[in-house]
């Protein structure tokens, strides 16, 4: 059984998509040379003319992707760092998200925008940000943020097959850090579901991306002290899997939501809202959120960065507090 990293899972899935469908092509900055994170390493040689370099212009990348999808292609764009995707915000939110509505469902935009996001890599303010909440707010764009290599394989495959615009978020810290044994073809999976990855009856933790791994590490540590956590890997951020969220919240009645995005307007508020509205009578404690503080830039300095970001120590402290409530 082969152990693959998140990065390898992405690369293999892109390779398979290029091999199996002539309409698939990749575009983005420095992709021909393999990309800054090496996600497309070797693919331009293997699929000549289908791995395209673009200028350093995110609005153009998104716009070209929309145009190609209009013409029946299956474009997969890479935005080198999620921090810069906002240059394409208008193209995504005002155009791509609405196309099937504007054509009364007659036309679709089968496009994927991949982008590395998240902090913890000393990337400073322009290479560390969490941008998911802006796009998860927009109906018509699916937002996916897996945590494990196997899910990167199955959900990237599902995103490429999806007839709608999908924003596929790859947490850059997990690229080489998280490895998993996977075998055979990617499991059939669908966008829009979350997974309960660990079950315990003291409290429920919701997380995604790197924070899912920090939450699982905290849960492991807490289990040693007799505090059992249910941990939910959200996987898809838009649309949220309300059913699984409610099931997991009801399982313990105590809810802790973790994200490395800043607190105000983050997804934690939406998840808390769903639970408060639909599972109020199952709650045993106030819903609690752990997020980055409401400060504009992610700090560069290591000590400040770790103070800024949630981690397993902070998660465990909040979980202990909630369990004791």
């Amino acid at each position, binding site marked *: 059984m082969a152990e693959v990293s998140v990065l390898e899972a992405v690369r293999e899935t892109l390779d398979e998509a290029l091999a199996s469908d002539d309409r698939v092509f990749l575009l983005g900055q420095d992709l021909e040379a393999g990309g800054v994170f090496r996600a497309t390493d070797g693919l331009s040689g293997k699929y000549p003319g289908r791995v395209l370099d673009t200028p350093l212009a995110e609005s153009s990348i998104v716009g070209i992707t929309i145009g190609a999808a209009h013409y029946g292609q299956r474009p997969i764009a890479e935005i080198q760092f999620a921090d810069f995707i906002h240059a394409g915000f208008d193209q995504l939110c005002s155009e791509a998200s609405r196309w099937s509505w504007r054509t009364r469902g007659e036309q679709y935009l089968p496009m994927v925008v991949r982008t590395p996001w998240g902090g913890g890599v000393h990337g400073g303010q322009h290479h560390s940000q969490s941008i998911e909440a802006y796009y998860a707010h927009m109906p018509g764009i699916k937002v996916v943020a897996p945590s494990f290599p196997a899910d990167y394989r199955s959900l990237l495959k599902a995103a490429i097959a999806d007839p709608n615009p999908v924003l596929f978020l790859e947490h850059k810290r997990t690229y080489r850090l998280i490895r998993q044994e996977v075998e055979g073809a990617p499991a059939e999976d669908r966008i829009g579901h979350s997974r309960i990855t660990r079950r315990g009856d003291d409290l429920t933790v919701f997380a995604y991306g790197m924070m899912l791994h920090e939450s699982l590490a905290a849960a492991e540590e807490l289990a040693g002290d007799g505090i059992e956590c249910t941990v939910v890997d959200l996987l898809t951020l838009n649309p949220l899997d309300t059913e699984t969220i409610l099931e997991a919240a009801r399982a313990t*009645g105590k809810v802790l939501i973790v994200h490395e995005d800043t*607190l105000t307007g983050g997804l934690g508020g939406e998840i808390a809202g769903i639970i408060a509205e639909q599972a109020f009578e*199952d*709650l*045993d404690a*106030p819903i609690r*959120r752990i997020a980055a503080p409401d400060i504009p830039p992610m700090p560069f300095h290591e000590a400040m960065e770790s103070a800024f970001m949630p981690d397993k*120590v902070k998660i465990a*402290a*909040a979980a202990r507090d909630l369990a004791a409530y």
Partner: protein
Amino acid sequence: MATITMPQLGESVTEGTVLQWLKQPGDTVALDEPICEIETEKVTAELPSPFEGALGEILVPEGETVEVDAPLCTILETAASAPEPAPGPAAAPEPASVAAEAPAPGVDGSRAGVYSPVVQRLAAKHEIDLTAIAGSGRGGRVTRKDVQAIIDEREREAAAADGIPPAAAPLPLPEGEVVPTPEIATVAASDAYDVVPLSATRRKIGENMVRSTTEAPQAWMMVEADVTGLVDLRARERERFVGVDLTYLPYFASTVAHTLTDFPELNARWHGDELRRYRRVNLGIAIATERGLVVPVVPNARDLSVAGLARRIDDLVTRAHAGKLRLEDIEEGTFTVNNTGAFGSIASKPIVNHPQVGIVTMERVVRRPIVVEGDAIAIRSMMNVALSFDHRALDGAEAGGFLAALKERLEALG
């Protein structure tokens, strides 16, 4: 020990005068029970106690004016005293936790009386007295796990009583042996409904209702009474009334008891082949509790004044809710009144409390335009009074006469 201070009754109010102490040192004080009256330049108000316990020391004598936040008295809290004091600027120390961005769910302090939504729902569903649980949560809070443990324990006991082995503790099996799943495992398993085991009280209420409706042919009639005078009277007397809240019920009970003097046919019990008319009026008072309906009795209700009835009924209500009624409290009732107006009802059809032969409801008092003398229209406080009676024991003539007399007495109040 907790100190109660002069509250700020309104913006720009800086001081207040203690008009009257409603409690004396040593008196027990319930949560939110008024302990004194305070007058400020803007309002006069009763000060509800934020603590449960006994009044300690009075620090400000009646008539004296002190500044806002000045100590008024001390309260010796009982162990289970519920709320934490209002958090002042220094009341919430910075949590030692590194997760500074997420505030702690609450300041420290007793949470013995603080129940989360899920705890309240489970306790109501399974009829669990939360005050009897020593909570394992912070500040003694009763947690969902605490409640679930009691439910699980009950289920184990019930299963044991029925000879069903507890599902949670399977017998150790020899390796490799396969046993069939017992069919009785699905006691309460359905997605479509919840199974609620019948409590003893619920079962008894059911039996009584079936017995009354199948044995006694019941007739029903209703009159409408103008109780404007009673409304005014009660408003006046309530102001001066100390100790318990003066409701309409004692007036009504008193009026019913005295009206029964003239209608002994209704102050009776049906015993097989004889009817027993009672010389005393032992008035049953229907009380809705968390455990179900109970009907404790005020013996010899005619001997008591309205004030006496108010205290007596309050005592019965308190003990009924606490589940502390004694057997003699519920025996030998001769007639029953039911304050259905408390639920907002304006007309209801009670079921006779067998073997009694009559039950009367007082419905909600509503202000309505009414045609009065001289073909004028006036706004009056109106109340429906409904009577169900055992038609074996009496007929419509006596029942109608009773209701007419009751109406007359009610309208004469005030």
